[in-house]
């Protein structure tokens, strides 16, 4: 990290890093998850969730602003002391690896179910792992540039959805707000989970150039970009499928695209999936990166590549464990989601609380 100064990321790259991390494996099932929880009011839950996350983001930003030179792991070590800090940092690294494994599991399952039923899943996940590993080994600057380029594909995803506009029936969104508070809250839960990945802000912030205010602006714009992207997808799914039908369709967008046919492309869903794979790759790449950085800090090492390979391999092998049946995948998912509340929301709040009691310290005084 000696040449960190001239390797800083621009605000634009920061923006694309955030959205590419957040938009990932979840977009296919998000409308379904919301609908299961809150029926046709799922989109309300999503908006409520987005506002809550917005609040969390402010706290993360305040924390990052206090220690502009440090990433998450350095902050942890400074704020909680050496040993507890190491334990917490390590658990973050493990958490990121597990999220990476979850991404692999959901990805492998989806590809296996929709396109390649005869290919062993490990081949699919192995390809994903190796591509991401290759990408992440080139350094965060390259990753950021690559993500910026790939973001054009998100527009392509939206473009594919245009064809559905004829078949949408707004009627299916009504009656509004008939779900109970409990259902709405469950929907908020599913909605918030779609935004996870924002913790990236704390890991990457010290590498971003520009004033803290600019960073906040970028974070907000990125957050609402993702929120609106999700909202479009959810509204399209909710109005294309009827209220009673959606609970049967676990990846509504794909299912919807499958029923359209054009002269040249007869299976639009496969098109969509190919683009979606890219979104999954970006998410997985970032989780490997964060986990690798975490391990590096824990072991005070400079050899990033070794740790990246270790985490990628770990995620790959962990993914074998739940991939067998839907039941184990669901259990795995729900455990990681619970952990996410602790790691991405609760702990940062604690850290911020601690930072209020710590005397404002000149950055890097420890080293």
């Amino acid at each position, binding site marked *: 990290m000696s040449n960190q100064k001239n390797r800083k990321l621009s605000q634009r790259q920061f923006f694309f890093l955030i959205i590419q991390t957040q938009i990932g494996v979840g977009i296919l099932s998000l409308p379904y998850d919301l609908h299961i929880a809150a029926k046709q009011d799922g989109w309300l839950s999503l908006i409520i969730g987005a506002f809550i996350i917005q609040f969390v983001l402010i706290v993360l930003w305040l924390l990052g602003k206090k220690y502009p030179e440090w990433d998450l792991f350095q902050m942890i070590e400074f704020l909680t002391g050496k040993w507890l800090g190491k334990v917490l940092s390590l658990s973050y690294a493990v958490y990121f690896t597990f999220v990476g494994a979850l991404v692999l599991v959901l990805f492998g399952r989806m590809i296996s179910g929709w396109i390649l039923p005869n290919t062993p899943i490990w081949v699919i996940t192995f390809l994903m792992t190796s591509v991401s590993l290759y990408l992440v080994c080139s350094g965060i600057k390259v990753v950021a540039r690559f993500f910026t380029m790939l973001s054009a594909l998100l527009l392509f995803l939206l473009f594919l959805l245009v064809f559905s506009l004829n078949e949408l029936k707004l009627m299916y969104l009504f009656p509004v707000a008939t779900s109970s508070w409990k259902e709405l809250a469950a929907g908020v839960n599913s909605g918030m989970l779609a935004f996870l990945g924002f913790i990236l802000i704390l890991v990457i912030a010290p590498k971003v150039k520009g004033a803290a205010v600019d960073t906040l602006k970028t974070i907000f714009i990125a957050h609402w970009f993702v929120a609106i992207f999700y909202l479009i997808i959810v509204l399209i799914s909710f109005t294309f*499928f009827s209220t009673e039908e959606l609970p049967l369709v676990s990846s509504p967008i794909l299912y919807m695209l499958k*029923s359209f046919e054009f002269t040249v492309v007869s299976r639009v869903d496969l098109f969509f999936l190919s683009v979606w794979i890219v979104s999954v790759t970006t998410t997985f790449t970032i989780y490997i990166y964060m986990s690798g950085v975490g391990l590096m800090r824990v072991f005070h090492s400079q050899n990033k*590549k070794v740790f990246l390979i270790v985490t990628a391999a770990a995620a790959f092998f962990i993914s074998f464990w739940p991939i067998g049946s839907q039941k184990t995948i669901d259990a795995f998912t729900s455990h990681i989601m619970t952990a996410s509340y602790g790691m991405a929301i609760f702990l940062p709040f604690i850290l911020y609380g601690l930072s209020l009691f710590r005397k404002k310290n000149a950055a890097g005084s420890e080293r």
Partner: protein
Amino acid sequence: MMMKRLLLAVICLVVLTGCWDTRHFKNVKLVLTIGFDAADDEKIKSTVSIPTIRRGADGPGEETVSVLSEIGYTPRSAREKIDLRISNAFDPSKLEVLLLGEELAKKDIYPVLDVFYRNPKNNLNAKLAVIEGEVEEAIGMQPNIDTRPSKYISGLLDAVKDATHTTGDNLQLICAELFEPGVDFVLPLLKVDKEMSTLKFNGLALFHDKVYTGDKITPEQTTLLMLMMGYKGKVARFTTQVLEDEEEQIMNYISFNVMNLDRNLNINVKDGEVEAVINLKLNIRVVEYPKKHLDKATEVTKLDDKLSEELTKEAKDIISRLQEANSDVFSIGRRIQAYHYKEWKKMDWNEEFSQITITPKVEVNIQQQGVIN
């Protein structure tokens, strides 16, 4: 650097050695039409048409179509049996038409369709139709007009859709209508005409929930029903009797095309009483009117009024049929659920629909009359 190269080599090895999921065209038999009939003991008879291309030494291959039927407990088990009879694997991923026998459609049709929704390889764009009589006859028929039955049937279904006789629903689009309470649907009815060796569009089968009610809308009325539902294909043509006193029968009729339409459906719920009004405004172009005195504005207005009256009368007839069959094709029920949720919770829509008042108001405007008056 070394590591990157190694990684690249490994990736190439994995990617280039081949694919587990290749499906060669030579190894599958594409099934383009599939149909289901009810068989004895609640079994299902599945009939498929499979085109085979025989390669000649030179010139284009000759195409033959074989039709196979088997009986099984479920569509899939019947398919396994058919698989045992053909040289390659049975592949419905390019399915064009799915036909349901009348008897089968009178029971819940979802169990028959489930296999198509469940497998991602299947084509959800396949068109559906109900056959009056046996599907086996329809698929087995050798049409003189087109070479293969599937092309013929799908062409026929496209044509009736373009002529505003059906909604053109495919497998995916009816799925919502199957499950949603307060939303029903219609499917085209086809009948085998043995003498002419053709199929004939014979109206629309009215469904309630997931079941064919057995009632239908006749082909003469389907266009008006479609317009009342807000659908218009490429052309919507009517021939209506507007006069009675002319000596020659041909003089009594007028034919016109609908140029555009404006439909709205108003629903009022008061004290549990549902009132629905369907306003339909049609702008038309007269294409045939042998009596040819459309030069005066008053004549045109008179004709407008007469046509409006006739079509409104017919619309009322259609609605009484729908209510008799308890088939809520306008999705009035779902609308009440959406916009009058409190009232909806109090009613039992299955009972209610036939009791409500639906008033159609058709307003016709002659806008063009061809190049002569």
